[in-house]
């Protein structure tokens, strides 16, 4: 490494991490002014834990993330299997577009179009519409992760099981899925994180009683810097950090392509 490339790396990483570190540091600031360091304090965490609407929103987000990531994991894994293992079929072009389309579709378009449909069919907005919307846009991400792992799997293992008389379901359950498990878990965690993070789509499809955490955070941060939100952000960053480490550990341990 030359000094120039080293400097580029250090500067790049500093740029990526400095804002996050500032945010975390000020969550422990006793003063409520961002430029004044009033000493170390956990008072904003106390304020945070007494904030009923924020806790209610966290609970909504958590339930939506669990349910939608479960659905997205099942759908995404099936989609990856269809695309990687079951080769050519009629409508493959359309199918590929349906699976990967939501990943490149502008978020405002996904949110708006789902809302227009829910209203068109007279479906009340709430937790269910949030789950449907999040499962829809997360499916493609799960499919990408699982498909990458499927491409790296030796198909002769599955063929051997089939030759030995195992039916397609048995091959899937006893050979393919166990080998895919790390990628499926990584995909599920990814879907969970994406669901937990979404503001734009949720703003369109949520109903009166189902405000999610990002929506609640957003309505607060529009008013400016707020140390309580810094504390909430710090907890979220810690949570996502742990999840990412777990996911990368899972894929690395099994020698996956994660």
């Amino acid at each position, binding site marked *: *490494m*030359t000094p120039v*490339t*080293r400097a*580029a*790396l250090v500067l*790049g*990483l500093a740029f*990526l*991490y400095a804002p*996050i570190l*500032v*945010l975390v540091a000020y969550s422990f600031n006793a003063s409520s002014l*961002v*430029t004044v360091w009033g000493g170390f304090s956990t008072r904003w965490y106390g304020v945070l834990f007494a904030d009923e609407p924020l806790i209610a929103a966290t609970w909504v987000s958590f339930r939506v993330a669990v349910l939608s990531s479960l659905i997205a994991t*099942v*759908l995404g894994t*099936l989609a990856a*299997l*269809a695309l990687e293992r*079951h080769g050519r079929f009629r409508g493959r072009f359309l*199918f590929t577009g*349906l*699976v990967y*389309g*939501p990943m*490149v*579709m*502008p*978020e*405002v*378009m*996904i949110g*708006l*179009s*789902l809302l*227009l*449909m829910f209203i*068109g069919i007279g479906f009340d907005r709430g937790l269910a519409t949030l789950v*449907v919307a999040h*499962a*829809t846009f997360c499916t493609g991400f799960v499919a990408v992760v699982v498909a990458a792992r499927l491409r790296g799997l030796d198909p002769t293992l599955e063929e051997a099981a*089939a030759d030995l008389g195992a*039916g*397609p379901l048995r091959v899937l359950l006893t050979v393919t899925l166990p080998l895919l498990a790390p990628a499926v878990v990584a995909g599920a965690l990814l879907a969970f994180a994406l669901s*937990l*993070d979404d*503001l*734009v789509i949720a703003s369109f499809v949520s109903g009166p009683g189902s405000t999610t955490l*990002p929506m609640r*955070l957003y309505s607060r*941060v529009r008013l400016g*810097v707020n140390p309580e*939100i810094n504390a909430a*952000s710090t907890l*979220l960053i810690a949570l*996502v*950090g742990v*999840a*990412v480490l777990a996911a990368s550990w899972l894929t690395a341990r099994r020698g996956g392509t994660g």
Partner: protein
Amino acid sequence: MNRDAPQRLFARLVRLPPFLWLAAFFLLPVVITLKISLSEPATAIPPYLPLLDWQGGLEGWSTFLEALNLDNYLTLARDPLYRDALFGSLAYAGGATALLAALGVPLAYALARAPARRQPFLVALIVVPFWTSFLIRVYAWIAILKQEGLLNLVLLKLGLIARPLAILNTDAAVMIGLVYAYLPFMVLPVYAVMNRLDPALREAAADLGAGPTRVFWSVTLPLALPGIVAGAGLCFIPMVGEFIIPDLLGGSETLMLGRVLWSEFFSNRDWPLASAVAVLILLIVLGPVVLLRDGLRGEGERP
């Protein structure tokens, strides 16, 4: 492979659930949005006309189709607000993509030239912030960029400026936010390509008398072009419809399509116009998406 009947049935059962789900919750809503973008706003529930009369049979269909029109798109083309939002979206997304290439390519190059055993860790360091909440990472810049924020504080202490700069709620803040939020999308694809380049090519160029700068410009950079194109697509596509960054870091005059759609929908309740803006965003990103897909397909087919 042996493709007997149960196998085929099984394959069909595997793709049926994702197909049905995505047809119902992705394809159908997009079609409905297209239709509403051709409708007129109305003070009713839902607030647009015409509604398809299912019982009307063929006649119902024909009155329905006759009532569809391009008025919303004409409004988008004529009204300076939407023209400005369109140009704003293109300018911000295009400018930020160029800036991202200028910053991301050197960073990816530095990453690819780091000691091999340290590279996975360094890549993870680039990726991790990208997984933490997008909203929070954008919000973090408010404390840094505002009038009495950290950046001004530091610059004042260093004596570089005499009075605080107004950065928050300007174009500069939006650009900083875009570059910050999308940097990993540029660095990772470029790194992936640079990492695979045969070092012998660089050595050959050096043996033939090219200095390190020349090697970078005439060997590494041209070969990394597919990665740069992929990165540019991955950044440009979501930035065109971006809402959070212009809304939190931009000023009231920062016009981007995502933000205009948001206010048409939530404040003005003009659903047909909001739908037309959504379709416009979709049309803009269609070209880059096809380009990106072809690029990625080329990547995927490598053995």
